[in-house]
C-alpha cells in the first residue's frame, strides 16, 4: 500500500476532522484586537503622562524642603508610566502572535508600537482628553489620587511657603479662599507675576511666599492655578 493511501486511511480511521477556518480567523483577529487595544490604552496612558508633566512645576524642587520632596515626587505619573510600559509590552505580544507578526523584527515592532502610542497620546492630550481620563480614574477608583488632589496637597502648605486658592476679593491686597475654605489676606505688593493672570474675583492662583500671621501671607511669586500651558505664554 502506498504511503499516501496509508495516510488517508489513518485520517479516516482516527476520524480526524479539520479545524474550522473561523477558528483561525478568530484567533488571528483576537491578536490584532489585542494589539490595537493595547496601543489605544498605551496611548491614553501616555496622554495622561503628558498631562501630569504639564501640571508639574519642576522648578519648585529647589524650593521644597527635603521632608516635602516626597510630596512633590508623588505628583509624578509613575502609575501611568507603568501602565504605558505594560500595554506597550502587550501590544508587542499581540502583534508577534498574529499570522504575519514574525516577519517584523523586534526592533521594528517595538519602535512602531512606541511611535503609534506617542502619536495617539499626544493627539489625545491636545484635545483635552487626558485630564478627563485622570478625573474619571480619581472619581471611580478609591485608591487613585488625581494629580489635582496631589497638587492641592502640595500647594496647601502655607508654613512651607506654598498657598493656593480662589480670589474672592481684590483691593490693595488679595483675599483668597484656600481649598479648606479658610480665608487669607495676601500681600502681593512685591510679588512676581508668572503667567497670564487677571487677578480678578473667581480666578484660581498659586502663591509662593511666607506666612506672616495666621491669615496673612506675603507673596513672592504668583502663578495661575493651571499648569505650564498657561505659563508658556508668559514673557
Amino acid at each position, binding site marked *: 500500500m502506498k504511503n499516501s493511501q496509508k495516510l488517508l486511511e489513518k485520517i479516516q480511521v482516527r476520524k480526524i476532522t479539520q479545524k474550522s477556518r473561523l477558528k483561525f480567523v478568530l484567533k488571528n483577529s483576537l491578536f490584532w484586537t489585542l494589539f490595537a487595544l493595547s496601543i489605544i490604552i498605551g496611548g491614553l496612558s501616555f496622554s495622561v503622562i503628558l498631562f501630569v508633566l504639564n501640571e508639574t512645576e519642576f522648578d519648585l524642587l529647589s524650593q521644597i524642603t527635603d521632608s516635602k520632596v516626597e510630596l512633590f515626587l508623588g505628583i509624578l505619573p509613575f502609575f501611568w508610566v507603568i501602565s504605558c510600559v505594560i500595554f506597550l509590552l502587550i501590544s508587542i505580544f499581540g502583534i508577534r502572535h498574529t*499570522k504575519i507578526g514574525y516577519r517584523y523584527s523586534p526592533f521594528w515592532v517595538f519602535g512602531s508600537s512606541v511611535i503609534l502610542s506617542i502619536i495617539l497620546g499626544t493627539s489625545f492630550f491636545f484635545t483635552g482628553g487626558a485630564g478627563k481620563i485622570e478625573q474619571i480614574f480619581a472619581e471611580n477608583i478609591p485608591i487613585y489620587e488625581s494629580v489635582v488632589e496631589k497638587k492641592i496637597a502640595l500647594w496647601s502648605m502655607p508654613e512651607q511657603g506654598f498657598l493656593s486658592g480662589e480670589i474672592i476679593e481684590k483691593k490693595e491686597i488679595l483675599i483668597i479662599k484656600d481649598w479648606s475654605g479658610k480665608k487669607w489676606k495676601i500681600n502681593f505688593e512685591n510679588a512676581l507675576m508668572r503667567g497670564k493672570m487677571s487677578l480678578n474675583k473667581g480666578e484660581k492662583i498659586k502663591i509662593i511666599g511666607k506666612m506672616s500671621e495666621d491669615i496673612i501671607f506675603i507673596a513672592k511669586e504668583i502663578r495661575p492655578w493651571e499648569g505650564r500651558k498657561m505659563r508658556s505664554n508668559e514673557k
Partner: protein
Amino acid sequence: MKILIKDCKGLSDEELVKKSLQDIDYFACIYERYEQKLIRYILRISSFDFAEAEEILQEAFVKVWQNLNEFDETLKFSSWIYRIIHNVTITEWKKSQSKGKDKTQEYDEELFQNLPAKLDLEKEVNQKFVENNIRKILQLIPEKYREILILKFLEEKDYKEISDILKKPSGTVATLINRAKESFRQTAKQENISFII
C-alpha cells in the same frame, strides 16, 4: 482512492489545497508531491532513520490535514508545509533525545558534495575526508545554525521562504546565515580541520 495522481498533474499546490478541502483524496496528491523532499528534509535536520522519518511525516501530514484551513495564499504552500514538518520533526527529535536515544546525525551524500562549495570553502581535498569532517562539524555547531545551513544550501530556500518556515524576520535570517557560516568555519578551525589545500 478515487483520485489518480495523474488527475493532480498541472494543478498548483494552492489548487490542490482547495480541492482537498472538498475531497480528501486530493490530499494524497499533496502527500505524494512532497513525500520524497520532506523525508529527505526530516533526515537532514534530525537523527531519525528512514522508517522513523516516514512515520514522522505521516504524523506531520495528519497535522497538516487538521490545519488545512489555516493555510492562506499570502504564503507559499511549500513554506507552510515545511514549517509544520520542521516543527513536528524538532519536537519529536527533542522528545527522543530526552528519552535517552542519543543518536548521531546522519547526512546524505548530496550534503557533503554541495556544502563545501556553498560555504565558500576552497578546493576539496579528498571527498571522503571532506564528508567525514562536514558531518563532524555539523554535529558540533548549534542547532539553529545547522538548520539554517540546511534550509539555505541544501533545500535551496530563499530568505523569504526561510523566514516563513522558521517564523523569523528576513533580516534575522540573513544574520543567522552569516553567523552559521562563521560558526562552521570557527568550529572547523577549532577542530583543526582545513578544507583548503
